[in-house]
């Protein structure tokens, strides 16, 4: 079966399932239900959704775009989706606070005919389109392997900086890391928990350096600016570091010539998900589980103004969108910054 824009909405390996709904005529009422508040990534995601929707060619399809952030409480997010269903929205795109918690509301959505699209932290439910990086590949095949490549000798100690315990994404990314690193039995792994928080990462990495003295590479999930900070503060030799795509981290790699790789889960997922919802409403079919191409760049290839932005905040996500998903999916910083206080 041929699905919509396969170069962008690539089906996950081994998932044949395709989703298609009764087409209906636009323009559509779309809602985005975000969870956690006060996190830069989420804010940029919201911005890029608005930026995308503001483009005239897309605006035509959208009668109403409602974006809410319900915070960490799963009950609140479920209520938000229920309310959008009740209010007769055509589609709801959401980042689940917890991938297991939405089966009931997904059923209610199906009966009510509301299209759900889950992204970034996808729900474990085959009945909705789920758009996500392939976390194991993301952390393993791409990030960890790149780090290994840049290690002069594939031996010694590698420091893994993990995310928030009990979170399924952390679990998958750790698995991906392990999958690759275990191919090298001579490499010893030291594991610390950074909670995806720059300050905590810096603290635990500094501790690890103080105790273990020296590492041959570092693989970090998020908040990786903390890794470079710690390494530089300790005058540690410049070993390969794999990390996120926050402006601060990429800059630190580039400007200090630290070998490594920046792998991005871009906030551009937001508009990609919204566009998927609209495509479904228009009658296009999509794979049930979409794996987004994973943008990444090695230190050697980093260019200012392209891969990092000296005059943007350190928390700015340098990869604003998915080029593979078409020209309308890449955003310039000021394009995003313009999407701010205007109500919706």
């Amino acid at each position, binding site marked *: 079966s041929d699905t919509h824009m396969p170069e962008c909405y690539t089906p996950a390996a081994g998932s044949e399932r395709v989703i298609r709904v009764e087409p209906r005529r636009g323009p559509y009422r779309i809602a985005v239900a975000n969870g956690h508040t006060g996190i830069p990534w989420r804010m940029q995601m919201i911005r890029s959704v608005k930026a995308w929707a503001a483009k005239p060619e897309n605006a035509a399809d959208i009668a109403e775009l409602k974006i809410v952030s319900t915070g960490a409480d799963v009950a609140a997010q479920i209520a938000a989706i229920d309310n959008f269903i009740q209010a007769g929205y055509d589609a709801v795109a959401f980042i689940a606070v917890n991938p297991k918690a939405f089966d009931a509301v997904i059923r209610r959505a199906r009966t009510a005919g509301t299209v759900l699209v889950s992204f970034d932290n996808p729900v474990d439910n085959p009945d909705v389109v789920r758009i996500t990086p392939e976390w194991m590949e993301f952390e393993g095949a791409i990030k960890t392997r790149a780090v290994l490549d840049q290690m002069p000798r594939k031996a010694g100690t590698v420091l893994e900086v993990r995310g928030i315990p009990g979170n399924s994404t952390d679990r998958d990314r750790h698995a991906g890391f392990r999958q690759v690193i275990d191919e090298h039995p001579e490499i010893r792994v030291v594991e*610390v928990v950074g909670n995806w928080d*720059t300050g905590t990462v810096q603290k635990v990495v500094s*501790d690890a350096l*103080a*105790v273990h003295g020296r590492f041959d590479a570092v693989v970090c999930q998020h908040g990786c*600016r903390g890794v470079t900070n710690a390494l530089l503060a300790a005058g540690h030799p410049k070993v390969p570091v794999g990390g996120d795509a926050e402006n601060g981290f990429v800059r630190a790699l580039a400007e200090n010539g630290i070998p490594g790789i920046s792998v991005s889960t871009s906030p551009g997922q937001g508009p990609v998900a919204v566009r998927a919802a609209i495509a479904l409403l228009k009658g296009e079919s999509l794979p049930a589980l979409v794996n987004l191409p994973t943008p990444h760049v090695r230190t050697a290839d980093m260019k200012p103004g392209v891969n990092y932005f000296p005059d943007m*905040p350190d928390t*700015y996500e340098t990869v604003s969108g998915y080029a593979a998903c078409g020209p309308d999916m890449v955003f310039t910083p000021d394009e995003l*910054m313009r999407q701010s206080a205007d109500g919706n």
Partner: protein
Amino acid sequence: MIPLVRALPRPVAAPGPAGVIALALVVLLLAGGLADPRFFSPAYLLQQLHTGAFLGVIAIGAMVVILTGHIDLSVPWTLSAAATFSTAFVGAAGEGAQGELGLLVGLAVGAGIGLVNGIGVAYLRLPSMIWTLAVNMVVLGVCVLHAGLYASGSRPSAVMATLGGGWIGSLVPNAVVVWMVLSAAAVFLLRRTVAGRCLYAVGTRESAAWLSGIDTRRVLLGAFVISGLCSAVAGMLLAGYANQAYQRMGDPYLLPGIAAVVLGGTSILGGRGSYGGCVAGVLLITLITSMLSLLQVPEAFKQIAYGGVIILMVGYYSRRAAAERA
């Protein structure tokens, strides 16, 4: 100096909080050292002091508020807000002298939030646990809105960077020096000044203090402003340490701050507690957290150990206090 309460019970001289924690620290280090001799390395211990300093500064504010029998739950976002706005100012004003005014901006933010906390608790007589929680949410909202409106800079000024991340030679982290200076100030405040006496008195029995001619409302207000300032200082130090201000940077500090004060033997009901214990508490918490994570202990067991330590220590203090009473 007339002690506010008898330092040690005359008959049974069981060690006080500071003593016990010192003991615990030694035990901890020995245990850790056996597990891995590198825990003894001066580099590691200095590292602990360095990260402890941020918690220590926060604990000063927390202790002052707790002494009055209240609590300040607005620490996380007061810290983030001070860091965010001070660095934003630096970004706008540019590096150099005028950029350093960002320090004042940060302090102003902290003092302002402390003022709001204090007005609610002291003048409107609202329960601190809820009022400061609400204030925390409002500040979060302000920060989110600010970040939503402006792509402002998030990089610390030179001074912030030096104080937060720099070292004197490679001997002492500057943050530790800051902590020590503030500690000295705190000790002086608590032991030698009228204000200090008022803190204890209000924490023991506010009505009696009021009838004694103290404007207890101003005392409470002051306590919360101090707390706000401490959070602000910690925020800017942290921004200097991490070379950036970022949202939610304060989240990891609320509960450890309170726990450190309580482990230090300060009564959560107010009116009782000494600063020495507070410092010891900070060191203990910092060391435990760091060692457990380095020993690769799974999060679940970290949490369990954390809670266990608190129960054991505080349980010991209360038994000791009881022994003192009868």
